[in-house]
């Protein structure tokens, strides 16, 4: 492999093994995932010069965290908060910062305790829409249910097809000893689970877990000094989508923009991707995202997922081999970090042997933040295995 100035690689990953952590503070989780990802990379705190976190960080955000964690040499900070998409976005931003020479070892962290401390809200003030929408007490699940119902109306999508997404995720999760829901379920079990907000059942929804994760993105020079299989960041796109006071289309997400931008930067097409981590806050999130990213035509997501299309290792688009947010882990109600981590495991050949995609060379990780179609953001990253 020829040296490529400006290239960036994911060199370290760590997913906290805990899913219910009442006895650890939020800051201790941040510390654990920091140590885990740096250990995985073979780097030390003293070498970190880029720091990335989102709004779940308390106090003065990134500065409070680097003070607590003891990271003295930070020369580049980014606190982009796109909800669950944040950490996918951070990988793209880190690659840009490294290419621009702003830093060479970027640490991206996530921690959350929504199971043990559901009242924690981070640093957010209410948005301007709140007086007009809060009287109706929309839950996150209900806003995604509105999208699911519209998708069904426009495209004939069925509850059975949505359930197939969960069934596939559960078939992957049964091989993950850390999965919050490790048992494989059937379509019937999904449909028989309690209705949360029709048409979404409880098993159409992701898990709520404590925990966190971290990722280390490094420069070409640092990557070469470490050696081994690396996940090179070769494409990134992100976009926001809102209704801007007017038209609404709940069947399309910002992935219609972030996906093509990431593919263009990587000079790839959807058919080139060996493995995809697809954001799965709800089953409908997966269905719309694979359509919006171009893995299948608009409206045909239901047929794509219903016959095992997402099953690893040999489905048309093997996805979320850790069990995803639907079964494994959704730390802090923010799934983007674990999406990046499992994509890197696949590129390293380190996924579960029964689910490892053979010769996995090109992987995509996609994050979704906010509410489908209304006020939301998407981030897409494409990575390539490089042996240094």
């Amino acid at each position, binding site marked *: 492999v020829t040296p490529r100035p400006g290239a960036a690689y994911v060199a370290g990953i760590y997913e906290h093994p805990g899913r219910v952590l009442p006895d650890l503070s939020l800051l201790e989780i941040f510390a654990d995932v920091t140590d885990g990802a740096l250990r995985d990379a073979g780097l030390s705190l003293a070498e970190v010069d880029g720091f990335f976190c989102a709004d779940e960080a308390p106090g003065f955000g990134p500065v409070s965290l680097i003070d607590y964690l003891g990271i003295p040499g930070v020369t580049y900070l980014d606190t982009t908060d796109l909800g669950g998409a944040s950490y996918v976005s951070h990988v793209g931003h880190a690659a840009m910062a490294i290419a621009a020479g702003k830093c060479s070892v970027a640490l991206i962290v996530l921690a959350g305790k929504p199971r043990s401390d559901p009242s924690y809200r981070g640093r957010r003030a209410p948005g*301007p829409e709140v007086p*007009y929408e809060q009287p109706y*007490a929309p839950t996150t699940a209900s806003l995604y249910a*509105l999208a699911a*119902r519209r998708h069904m109306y426009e495209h004939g999508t069925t509850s059975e097809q949505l359930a197939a997404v969960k069934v596939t995720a559960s078939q992957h999760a049964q091989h993950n000893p850390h999965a919050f829901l490790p048992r494989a379920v059937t379509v019937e079990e999904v449909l028989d689970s*309690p209705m949360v907000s*029709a048409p979404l059942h409880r098993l159409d929804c992701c898990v709520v877990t404590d925990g966190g994760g971290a990722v280390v993105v490094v420069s070409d020079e640092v990557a070469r000094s470490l050696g081994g299989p690396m996940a090179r960041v070769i494409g990134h796109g992100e976009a926001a989508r809102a209704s801007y006071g*007017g038209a609404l289309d709940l069947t399309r997400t910002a992935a219609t923009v972030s996906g093509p931008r990431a593919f263009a930067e990587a000079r790839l097409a959807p058919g080139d991707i060996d493995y995809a981590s697809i954001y799965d806050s709800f089953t409908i999130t997966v269905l719309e995202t694979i359509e919006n990213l171009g893995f299948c035509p608009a409206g045909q997501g239901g047929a794509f997922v219903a016959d095992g299309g997402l099953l690893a290792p040999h489905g048309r688009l093997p996805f979320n081999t850790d069990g995803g947010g639907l079964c494994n882990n959704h730390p802090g109600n923010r799934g983007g970090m674990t999406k990046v981590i499992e994509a890197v495991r696949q590129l390293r050949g380190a996924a579960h042997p029964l689910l490892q995609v053979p010769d996995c060379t090109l992987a995509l990780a996609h994050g979704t933040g906010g509410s489908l179609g209304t006020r939301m953001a998407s981030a897409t990253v494409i990575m390539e295995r490089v042996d240094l």
Partner: protein
Amino acid sequence: MTAARDESSAADGGVPPTGDRVLRVPRCRRCHRHFWYPRARCPHCRSADIELLDSRGTGTLYTYSTLPAGTKGSATADDVRILAYVELDEGPFILTTLTGLSPDEVRIGMSLTALLPDGDQPLRFVSST
């Protein structure tokens, strides 16, 4: 606090106090387009010249979700809520709830009419027929 006052003054007409008998929807005097939710700047053209126009209060159902009784936001323990997006005839989409309908009567595309805020109840929509 100027910005906050502007937002709330634009908001005053959007959700009329009890007793008003008409829904008012903001429209931009410069580009003549309606929008929702109410705000002090036009999201279409950035104009600050916003008027509140009487709405016909009619629209069609874009999508909906039924939430079981007892879910957060239910008025009573046995109240099934129907959360909905309604496309107003003037153009904008509005997040709301439907009332006076059982879940099996609800159809995407059905005609709906605004039911103005009453006491603790926010703006809701009922079937037009």
